[in-house]
């Protein structure tokens, strides 16, 4: 899906401006790294794209959806078309890893058996097949993160939003996950990934959008994590 944000500002309360006057357009099938120091508004931007937040000002168009004017059922439909890896995972606590993934498939209307099969497949993709029957609290941080990635990609989303998907992964596993994400992107899914992982950004060069204090300060094709190095 194509994304067009124009003049997006998001304020919280009186004095917190998480995003300011953001113009961003991402063509279909693009891969975008969203970088920036902590608190610079990356998660806010992704949450606006997931329609958890409404922008205080500005327009957001994703595919045929105008995110400012979605009715309840449309929101559900929209969210099914996209996938999101949350920074804090947001797994369902009393469902196993497998059920957490299968759940989103069943919510769309897949029959139980198909859902479980597909869920097993994506869990295998992220290396979590062996741990599929454990509950989130029984998984390590990195394992939870991978379940959350599996859930986001299970639906074959047209747009994948990843918020720090490798924060709790060791470099090698992070690299493997990155391969998975790249192959999904290669199949046509637009992918936005907020990250602090300098290794990944520098190793797999893609478009880099840098935020600072809520403003876009850099938008570079095949960029690196730090701007200076590019000079």
């Amino acid at each position: 899906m194509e994304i067009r944000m124009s003049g997006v500002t998001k304020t919280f309360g009186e004095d917190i401006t998480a995003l300011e006057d953001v113009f961003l357009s991402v063509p279909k099938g693009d891969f975008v790294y969203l970088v920036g120091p902590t608190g610079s508004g990356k998660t806010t931007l992704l949450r606006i794209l997931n329609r958890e937040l409404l922008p205080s000002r500005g327009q957001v168009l994703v595919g045929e959806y105008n995110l400012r004017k979605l009715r309840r059922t449309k929101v559900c439909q929209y969210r099914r078309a996209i996938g999101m890896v949350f920074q804090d995972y947001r797994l369902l606590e009393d469902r196993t890893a497998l059920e957490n993934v299968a759940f989103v498939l069943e919510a769309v209307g897949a029959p139980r058996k198909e859902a479980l099969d597909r869920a097993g497949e994506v869990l295998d993709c992220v290396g979590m097949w062996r741990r599929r029957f454990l509950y989130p609290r029984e998984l390590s941080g990195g394992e939870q993160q991978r379940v959350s990635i599996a859930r986001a990609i299970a639906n074959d989303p047209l747009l994948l939003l990843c918020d720090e998907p490798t924060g709790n992964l060791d470099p090698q596993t992070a690299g493997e996950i990155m391969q998975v994400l790249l192959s999904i992107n290669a199949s046509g899914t637009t992918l936005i990934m907020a990250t602090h992982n300098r290794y990944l950004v520098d190793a797999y060069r893609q478009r880099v959008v840098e935020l600072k204090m809520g403003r876009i300060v850099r938008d570079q094709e095949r960029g690196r994590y730090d701007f200076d190095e590019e000079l």
Partner: protein
Amino acid sequence: MRSFSFAIRDTVRLIRRSPGISGLTFLTVLVVFFFVGCSFLLALNTRHVISVVEGELVVQAYLQPKADLEGLAKKVEKMPHVRGVRPISPEQALELLKARLGNQSAAVTLLGENPLPASLEVRVDKASSVSGIARELVSMPEVEDVVYAGKVAEKLARLSRFAEIFSLFLLVFAGLAGALVLYNTIRVAIYSRKQEIEVMLLVGAMPGFVALPFVLLGLFWGLTGTLAASAVLGFLYKSFVNSVQNTLPFIQLVDSPQLYLKLALILIGGGVSLSWLCSWIAVERHISEAMKPS
């Protein structure tokens, strides 16, 4: 259909994952509807006792010496609000007087000729009709005099009106209180699932899909709780009725198969629809909160 089977599986999961909360919600529903049922039975019995007492109210009509006792009895029997008529001949009246005087009956045997008149004992359907009947009877040419417990009838009429209002009030109040406690309990139980609801909606589940298991959960609590409540109440009331019948046979309580059926239907019907409604409202609140972007 598919999402319904999912919902049922999910409801079972919800129950099994927090058996403590489920169990206690069930108990609360039980207790609340037990009390509602008690109020219902209390109201029913109050009205029953009053109507039994009212049924014993009589108007005594003393007839002219030459009146046609049997004919008049038939005529009076057809009047509205009359439940029955017992004709009493002068001879019967004398016997009754003797019986009433007990060991002073010797005084009566001193009488020469029987001076007592024939009379009709008219039973009336309810206390408030007594004075009307008495007035009609006294206006008849065959009737010489009418005696009735005017004050008692008036008292009973007032009591019956009062009990009517009181039992209605009691029922409404018990129903409201039950609904309140039920709503609270279900709401708090669902509150502990708040995050789950949020996450489900975040990954694109439809509100109805998310709500269904919780609504079924409320339904489950309501159904099992009220089933148990009617069983317990039915059993306790039956033993209560039995022990009353054994020790206080002169007190008549309402007791019939229809009563138990009615009780069960009221409790279960009320409980199921209330709990359905409550869980629906409770979960809908969370959903619309979670769906509203900030």
